[in-house]
């Protein structure tokens, strides 16, 4: 059987290689894009179709301990959305938190071929790797939660910056993670240890000898930069969801100086207004800052109306939302490492805050001048399922559709935003940037997000249709590492996908520094903590910058 394929006559969108809608052949051999293939290659006629690299989700929650708790929690959400199996693919359940198999297959059905789980406790890494192994088709990796790590904070308090950096590298290696994740840095200790309180300011020190969120953020940006990780610290700022939090967000970005930082689901951090009162939009302020600072990248965390599941390492936030949703609530504390909260949620058009959140996300997309640094996400499933991406793309590409949707949302809210006046429509090339090329670049994945020779042959071919939601909902072909997964809208093969992780070098004596803390305060043995290579299925180490 030939392992090479030639795709002819398709309109190609490959922004990294500056290809904007040209008719061009794409050739595949042995899982990679190549200049050309022989005459014996399988030929696919893509006339009338749009070819893009496979989509890359830079921020989603698809595997690991908290995701699995959210799955177990919501049989009612799965029941109405079954995912049937076939003799060669596994079945599963959908809803806002699909089973692992359904997750992989459904990403594929949108033309996405890479996704990053954005928050994993180190102690939950093994679990996450097991789930990712059972998540088919896509390549995947995860960000390890270190922003509330008590040991790392102790090193910082003692000013042991060098050891701090090596400890981070040790933790990344020990968990097979892709980068570091900070969530509400500094907020766990007041949550767990001070009767469910929280930090409310980036410069706050809950105890006099504590360090502030800003010190933590700064130290991570510095250390990760020195380690040369392909993706900078992935930051979930303090004060998520609170009115007036855009100031914290701006301060967080300022803390980075001119070093790289990625701000997660920035929509949730772009609220003006007075604390405790209804928020208003600060999208303009946030977009302005990002426009002027090329070191900052972000993903939007768009809210989509309908069912969602709040799942976050930001436990105080989930507790606050519990008071709003008034239903079931999960809190899960992880020793020395993290908090976690889960609340089933629903965004409703007529609710002021929800409509405002929806509008702010769109404002951010439309106000931002550099599509390479504003990445499409719904913070799945926090803002809504990733299955909403096609609709979100239509909202960005079709201003009349956007106006129609706008007219149904709470008018008081949307009128407090600039959205009614924003006429911009994203082009297909820009969509290719915010869903593929941009995230791949932000992640430092040189073989993803483009269709140049040497790239992974992760390719999506859509029918060129006027209705972009329909178009992006149903690729005609999807190739993963050169393997046809979907052909003529139907699954034709199963595929495992790879784990993507990094392995920065570190001074091995750091192990002796970590061990005593561990032996005192963890409940498992130090020597059983690091994840060994048997948990890596097919995998790829993404190199660090030197």
């Amino acid at each position, binding site marked *: 059987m030939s392992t090479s394929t030639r795709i002819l006559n398709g309109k190609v969108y490959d922004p990294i290689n500056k290809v904007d809608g040209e008719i061009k052949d794409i050739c595949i051999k042995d899982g990679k894009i190549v200049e050309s293939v022989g005459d014996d290659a399988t030929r696919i006629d893509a006339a009338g179709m749009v070819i893009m690299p496979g989509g890359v989700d830079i921020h989603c929650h698809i595997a690991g301990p908290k995701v699995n708790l959210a799955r177990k*929690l*919501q*049989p*009612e*959400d799965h*029941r109405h959305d079954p995912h049937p199996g076939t003799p060669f693919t596994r079945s599963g359940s959908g809803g806002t938190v699909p089973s692992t198999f359904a997750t992989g297959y459904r990403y594929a059905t949108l033309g996405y071929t890479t996704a990053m789980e954005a928050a994993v406790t180190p102690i939950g890494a093994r679990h996450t790797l097991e789930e990712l192994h059972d998540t088919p088709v896509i390549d995947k990796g995860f960000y390890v939660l270190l922003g509330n790590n008590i040991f790392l904070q102790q090193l910082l308090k003692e000013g042991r910056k060098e050891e701090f950096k090596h400890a981070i590298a040790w933790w990344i290696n020990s968990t097979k993670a892709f980068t570091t994740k900070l969530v509400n840095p500094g907020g766990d200790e007041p949550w767990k240890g001070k009767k469910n309180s929280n930090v409310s300011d980036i410069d706050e020190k809950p105890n006099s000898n504590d360090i502030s969120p800003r010190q933590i953020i700064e130290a991570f940006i510095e250390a990760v930069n020195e380690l040369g990780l392909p993706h900078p610290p992935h930051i979930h700022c303090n004060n998520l969801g609170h009115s007036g939090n855009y100031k914290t967000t701006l301060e967080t970005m300022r803390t980075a100086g001119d070093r790289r930082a990625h701000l997660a689901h920035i929509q949730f951090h772009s609220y003006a207004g007075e604390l405790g009162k209804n928020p208003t939009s600060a999208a303009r302020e946030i977009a302005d800052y990002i426009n002027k600072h090329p070191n900052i990248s972000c993903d939007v965390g768009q809210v989509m109306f309908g069912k969602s599941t709040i799942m976050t390492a930001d436990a105080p936030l989930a507790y606050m939302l519990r008071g709003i949703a008034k*239903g*079931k609530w999960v809190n899960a504390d992880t020793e020395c490492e993290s908090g976690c909260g889960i609340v089933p949620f629903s965004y409703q058009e007529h609710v002021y805050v929800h409509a405002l959140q929806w509008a702010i996300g769109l404002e951010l997309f439309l106000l931002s001048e550099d599509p390479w640094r504003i990445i499409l996400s719904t913070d799945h499933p926090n803002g809504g399922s990733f299955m909403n991406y096609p609709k979100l793309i239509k909202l960005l590409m079709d201003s009349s559709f956007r106006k129609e949707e706008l007219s149904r949302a709470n008018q008081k809210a949307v009128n407090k935003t600039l959205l009614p006046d924003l006429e911009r429509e994203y082009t297909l090339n820009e969509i290719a940037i915010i869903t593929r090329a941009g995230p791949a670049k932000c992640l430092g994945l040189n073989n993803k997000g483009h269709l140049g020779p040497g790239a992974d042959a992760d390719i999506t071919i859509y029918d060129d249709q006027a209705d972009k939601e329909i178009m992006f909902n149903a690729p005609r072909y999807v190739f993963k590492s050169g393997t046809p997964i979907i052909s003529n809208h139907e699954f034709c093969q199963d595929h495992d996908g790879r784990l993507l992780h990094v392995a920065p070098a570190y001074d091995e004596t750091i192990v002796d520094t970590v061990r005593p803390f561990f032996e005192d305060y963890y409940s498992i043995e130090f020597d059983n903590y690091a994840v060994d290579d048997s948990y890596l299925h097919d995998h790829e180490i993404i190199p660090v910058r030197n």
Partner: protein
Amino acid sequence: MSINLTLHTSPEVPLEAEVLCTDKLIGLTGSEIEKLPVEHGNRQVSVADFFTVKGSPDDSISIEGDLSKVKHLGAAMASGKLTISGNVGSHLGAGMTGGKILVEGDAGDWVAPEMQGGSVEIKGNAGHLVGSAYRGSPIGMSGGEILVHGDAKNEAGHAMRNGIIVIGGKSGDFAGVNMLAGSIFLLGETGIRIGAGMKRGTLVTMSKTSMLPTFSYSCRYQPAYLRMYLIYLQELGFSVSDEQLFGFYHRWCGDAIEMNRGEILAHDF
């Protein structure tokens, strides 16, 4: 003339036959109905493999035989009448929105869970979770009526939001648990912990029932509206005595842990 189905072969394993529902058969001929799919365990078979189909379609179906291994009959039904002469398995009338289901015998667990409208009448006994929510769901039955002339087991009306449930005989534990609203009449002996976690709604019990510590006693009175209800139940064929019709009721309100706006009316006999 209505359609009549007779079970000619007993299923060895559960038979799921949600297709046997008035709305889904209207407009089909007998031989088309025979070809409809039903699931015998994990095998898809056709109606004819288990049922003899007679008559021509209108909006009523009758099904005969021991259907205790047959599940999901009348699920999602919206109109018409389904009569079952015999016992029937679980999930009868699940999620139905209208129409009427009559069972001459006993029904299994999950009678009309998450029902939205219509009526289900069971002449015999029913199992657990009559008119309830499925696990994890915050809302159970949200409309319609379920009339069980015999006994029912645990969790009748779990998370019920609207409608009426009447249990003529004995009822199990946790009747009306987590009720949001609606009315439940327990005419026979009840189980324990009735109304636990109820927010609103009315539970009426005709037998001596112990109250949870989170229910508080309001008064002893003769609620006029209750008499109207009870007369209606009499008309439906439930036995309601004159003492119950004209007597006094103790009113308890609860559940204090929730909104405290539910009531339990216990007949003072």
